[in-house]
């Protein structure tokens, strides 16, 4: 089955070091060291401000760029860090370095506590909610007299400007490193799957709430440390400067300009625009914000990917590469060998449905249906429109509550197990419309499903195996959105296989497909039993598409089971013919 596609399963891509990256690192170190060594006080201050902008940009990018949660109030964390640090310095004997990092810690605690509330909001609601949060914070600190109220408070500058600068640079490097981790790791893939389609990600086993909260807390940490350092640097803070909403504007401008959701965009955007602003806008302070506003509008309309996408279009190589792709696909790996076979030997059917009824008010959608699906069987449920196919399907997955009857998996009653619990027990499903993670690669779409419940190395091998088996390997680097509808369907099946289910439920997978596409999908489904799937249940409207595919067919008519047999017998059953063609007098 498996072909020798590579040398060894554990072979990894040799670590390539691009000369440009090396050159950049050297330049960075030289500039970073030269500024405090030879620069004037003004140069050090400007450099500190630039690095602070880079930190804010990378933090914002972490949340907005990868998980897709746009924050219009990230300055809340900057202000919290500034105030927490100041209060610790003024009222406790802790040393300066503790106060700065404790400020970051306070912001993380705030983020983790408001996260579960704020992150329930999606899209525009989250953006507006964060805007509100920042204003609430500002009002709280204006009203709270202890840290100085509206008048603010003075903090003695114990740290030299150069020390602040060095700490800012170190924080900036850390913020960059976290972004680097995101674009290179499986965790980052989880975050990006949230951005692409949060519900689909959840259905694939991504713990979306956990992922969002971790990213949110991390993106709160760095601005808070920068805020603490800013407080030291300025020796004075008050609510308007700690919670300045224009800081959010600037951060968003920088990231959009450089390229949102990219590794280099925040650095490019923040450093160029900060320096340009310093050089060009000294004489135009009155219209500076208006210009930034215009840049936001211009970039969204004319250059949606920012400078990074421009560089890529001109032949640059700053595009994100799919995560964890092995240089060569491993051979000889077969998950069926390692799959636990605790069900083997059990005499019970894979899935059994007994006396199942589903009623919606007075309407009986499924009436007292019983059937069994045996080991290795492909069962297709067919019937005319309104026959109850989809309701039966939903009852098995747990999406629709049943009125009476029992469902059991490998002899274990699962009637009372909720939907997500059934997923964990090995029941996987497809959707009528494929919900792929459009902007991620084919490889990543499968990997994100394979990752959960597996060690990282195993997940990579498993993904490679699934893609290889389904013949999707040559397309592994393509974006899911660019595939043809038939290929997208295959990719969805690949994702189902990647979670290694016991039972697969397919919801009209062949609807609206060309003959050729149907043939490809049929081939994949026929392989399912030998790929470790114990049973397949499909719901289909078009009989011709599934007649030669199924081991047995179950025909529903107005909620009743009117036939359940091998395809030949079912198709010649007078009752079935009548149900489909009406009474031929």
């Amino acid at each position: 089955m498996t072909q020798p596609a590579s040398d060894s399963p554990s072979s990894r891509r040799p670590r390539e070091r691009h000369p440009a990256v090396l050159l950049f690192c050297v330049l960075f170190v030289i500039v970073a060291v030269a500024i405090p060594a030879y620069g004037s006080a003004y140069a050090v201050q400007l450099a500190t401000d630039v690095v602070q902008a880079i930190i804010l940009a990378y933090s914002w990018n972490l949340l907005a760029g990868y998980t897709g949660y746009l924050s219009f109030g990230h300055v809340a964390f900057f202000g919290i860090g500034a105030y927490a640090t100041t209060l610790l310095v003024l009222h406790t004997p802790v040393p300066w370095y503790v106060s700065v990092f404790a400020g970051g810690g306070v912001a993380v605690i705030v983020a983790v506590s408001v996260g579960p509330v704020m992150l329930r909001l999606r899209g525009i609601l989250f953006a507006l909610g964060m805007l509100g949060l920042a204003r609430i914070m500002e009002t709280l600190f204006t009203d709270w007299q202890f840290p100085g109220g509206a008048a603010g408070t003075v903090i003695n500058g114990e740290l030299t400007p150069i020390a602040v600068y060095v700490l800012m640079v170190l924080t900036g490097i850390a913020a960059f490193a976290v972004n680097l981790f995101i674009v290179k790791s499986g965790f980052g893939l989880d975050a990006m799957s949230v951005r692409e389609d949060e519900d689909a990600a959840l259905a694939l086993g991504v713990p979306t709430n956990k992922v969002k909260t971790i990213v949110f807390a991390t993106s709160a940490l760095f601005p808070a440390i920068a805020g603490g350092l800013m407080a030291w640097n300025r020796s004075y803070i008050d609510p308007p400067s700690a919670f300045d909403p224009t800081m959010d504007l600037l951060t968003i401008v920088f990231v959009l300009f450089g390229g949102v959701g990219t590794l280099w965009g925040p650095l490019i955007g923040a450093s160029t625009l900060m320096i340009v602003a310093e050089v060009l806008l000294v004489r135009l302070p009155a219209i500076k914000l208006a210009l930034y506003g215009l840049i936001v509008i211009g970039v969204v309309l004319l250059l949606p990917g920012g400078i990074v996408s421009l560089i890529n279009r001109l032949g640059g190589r700053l595009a994100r590469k799919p995560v964890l792709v092995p240089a060569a696909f491993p051979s000889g790996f077969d998950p069926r060998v390692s799959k636990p076979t605790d069900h083997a030997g059990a005499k019970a059917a894979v899935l059994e449905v007994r006396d199942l009824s589903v009623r919606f008010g007075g309407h009986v959608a499924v009436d007292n249906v019983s059937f069994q699906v045996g080991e290795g069987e492909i069962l297709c449920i067919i019937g005319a429109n309104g026959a109850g196919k989809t309701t039966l399907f939903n009852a098995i997955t747990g999406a629709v509550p049943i009125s009476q009857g029992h469902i059991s998996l490998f002899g274990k009653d699962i009637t009372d197990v909720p939907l997500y619990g059934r997923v964990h027990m090995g029941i996987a499903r497809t959707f009528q419309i494929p919900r792929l993670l459009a902007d991620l690669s084919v490889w990543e779409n499968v990997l994100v499903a394979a990752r959960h419940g597996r060690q990282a190395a195993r997940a990579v091998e498993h993904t490679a195996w699934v893609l290889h088996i389904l013949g999707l390997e040559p397309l592994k680097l393509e974006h899911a959105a660019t595939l043809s509808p038939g290929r997208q369907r295959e990719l969805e099946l690949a994702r189902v296989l990647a979670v290694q289910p016991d039972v697969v439920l397919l919801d009209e997978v062949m609807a609206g497909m060309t003959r050729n596409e149907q043939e490809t999908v049929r081939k994949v489904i026929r392989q399912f039993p030998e790929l470790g799937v114990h049973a397949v249940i499909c719901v289909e409207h078009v009989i011709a598409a599934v007649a030669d595919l199924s081991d047995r067919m179950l025909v529903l008519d107005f909620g009743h089971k009117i036939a359940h047999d091998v395809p030949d017998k079912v198709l010649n059953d007078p009752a079935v013919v009548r149900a489909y063609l009406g009474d031929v007098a």
Partner: protein
Amino acid sequence: MSAMTAIQVLVNGLLLGGTYVLIAQSLNLIFGVMKVVNLAHGGFVVIAGLFTFWAVNRLGIEPLAALPIVFVGGAVLGGVLEPLIIEPLMGKGRQSELLSLIVTFGLNYVLTQIALFSFGTDYVSVPFLQMTFNVGGVIVSAALLLTAVFAGITTLLLYFGLKYTFIGKSLLAASQSTIGAQSCGIDVGRVRAVAFALGVALAAVAGALLIMVQPMSASSSDNLTILAFVVIALGGLGSYRGATVAAFLLGVVQAAVGYLLGGNVESVLPFVLLIAIMVLWPRGIQRST
């Protein structure tokens, strides 16, 4: 709070709510038709308000005469801006929502800076109808009453205009289904431009009315946008009747909170309500979207 004070606070709140109706309905119109939360909304309101202040003081025109001027000015501005910066972002699903949010976020800064540059940073107000009625011990400000009545009439006109005129019906059709409206022969792009122009024009009228009853500065724009969004979120996004009720409700709540807890809490109340409403009644928000 004695009964009399309570009634006074209630009346104040209702009158305050009357001024919110128009700001919220114009935002609602834009959101309903285009699914765009116009973050520059407050910017349009303050520019029109400060322009009215300037026109009354420098040109010596009657405050009420400024209303048609800012209406036309707002319509032209909205009609020009929509095809330029919003229309190119439409038709991209969830992306459209976020992109238009970012663009209007940027636009808000442009408008606020223009207002700061042209009219300065001071809080100003147009003195108008500074008399009060005493209705059985409850004091009613004539200016507030007039603005509430004006806002009410405009909202009614908007409501009937949407229901009974051809362009109004096109707007409603476009807000329900872009493709459906297009296949009925409606130029949805133009309809969106009309909706945005009308929304900005009404926001401008709201600004001109608002400055006659309360002081305003260029930096008030964010608060006004959030206030309007809270109202339409509370009323169920896109629902005109819901937003009207919500505007009066918010006015009363704000007046009561201001009386009991002071001005600072009153000013932050919209933000607290914003988060609370979005978290506690997400279904209320999505009911009509």
